């Protein structure tokens, strides 16, 4: 079974400081990992994904994520946080799917990031 854990409901960081939003996963088969961001009353915006290859994945708006197979983690990071980064962040794992079989997306509970000035 596939599952995602985001151990922190809230992360608070000062503007200009580095930020980390944690995610661990459990998956049978190859991990396909995604990060999405959701602003209030908006849909989910895709930030980045890990499929294979380099463990450090770079995405939109200066975000990056580090895939760690031994720790089954996929933490989201940004070197210098902005107030405008304040939003709800979802980590997701996609199960194996190909052809007629859907690779369902399983989301974590979300982490509310607040960046204060």
């Amino acid at each position, binding site marked *: 079974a596939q599952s995602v854990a985001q151990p922190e409901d809230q992360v608070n960081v000062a503007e200009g400081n580095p930020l980390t939003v944690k995610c661990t996963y459990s998956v049978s088969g190859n991990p396909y990992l995604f990060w999405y961001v959701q602003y209030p009353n908006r849909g989910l915006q895709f930030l980045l994904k890990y499929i294979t290859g380099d463990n450090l994945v770079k995405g939109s708006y200066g975000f990056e994520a580090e895939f760690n197979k031994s720790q089954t983690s996929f933490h989201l990071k940004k070197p210098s946080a902005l107030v405008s980064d304040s939003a709800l962040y979802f980590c997701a794992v996609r199960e194996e799917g190909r052809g007629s079989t859907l690779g369902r997306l399983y*989301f974590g509970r979300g982490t509310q990031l607040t960046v204060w000035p």
Partner: protein
Amino acid sequence: DAMVIQNPRYQVTQFGKPVTLSCSQTLNHNVMYWYQQKSSQAPKLLFHYYDKDFNNEADTPDNFQSRRPNTSFCFLDIRSPGLGDAAMYLCATSRTRDSPDTQYFGPGTRLTVL
């Protein structure tokens, strides 16, 4: 820009009064999804279309139906909305059902049931 569009952004309906939510996409993707997201929770998949092939999730209530008249459009019909159906409804698309493919989401429709 290619995108996923949802209308309306906010919908208010009365208890038991049917409502239809709309989604359109300019990405020309084969797969369209409907998710329900309740306050501060993760999105929950209701069903998906692969082309015209409809696929219901096992725990999706019968009250929820969907139509996909063509590649670009998909509708969510709630036949008799209850108070528990108040939520954000998200439409998403992907090129295929394969795992590496990204799902792209629309802005959502916030449904209020009075």
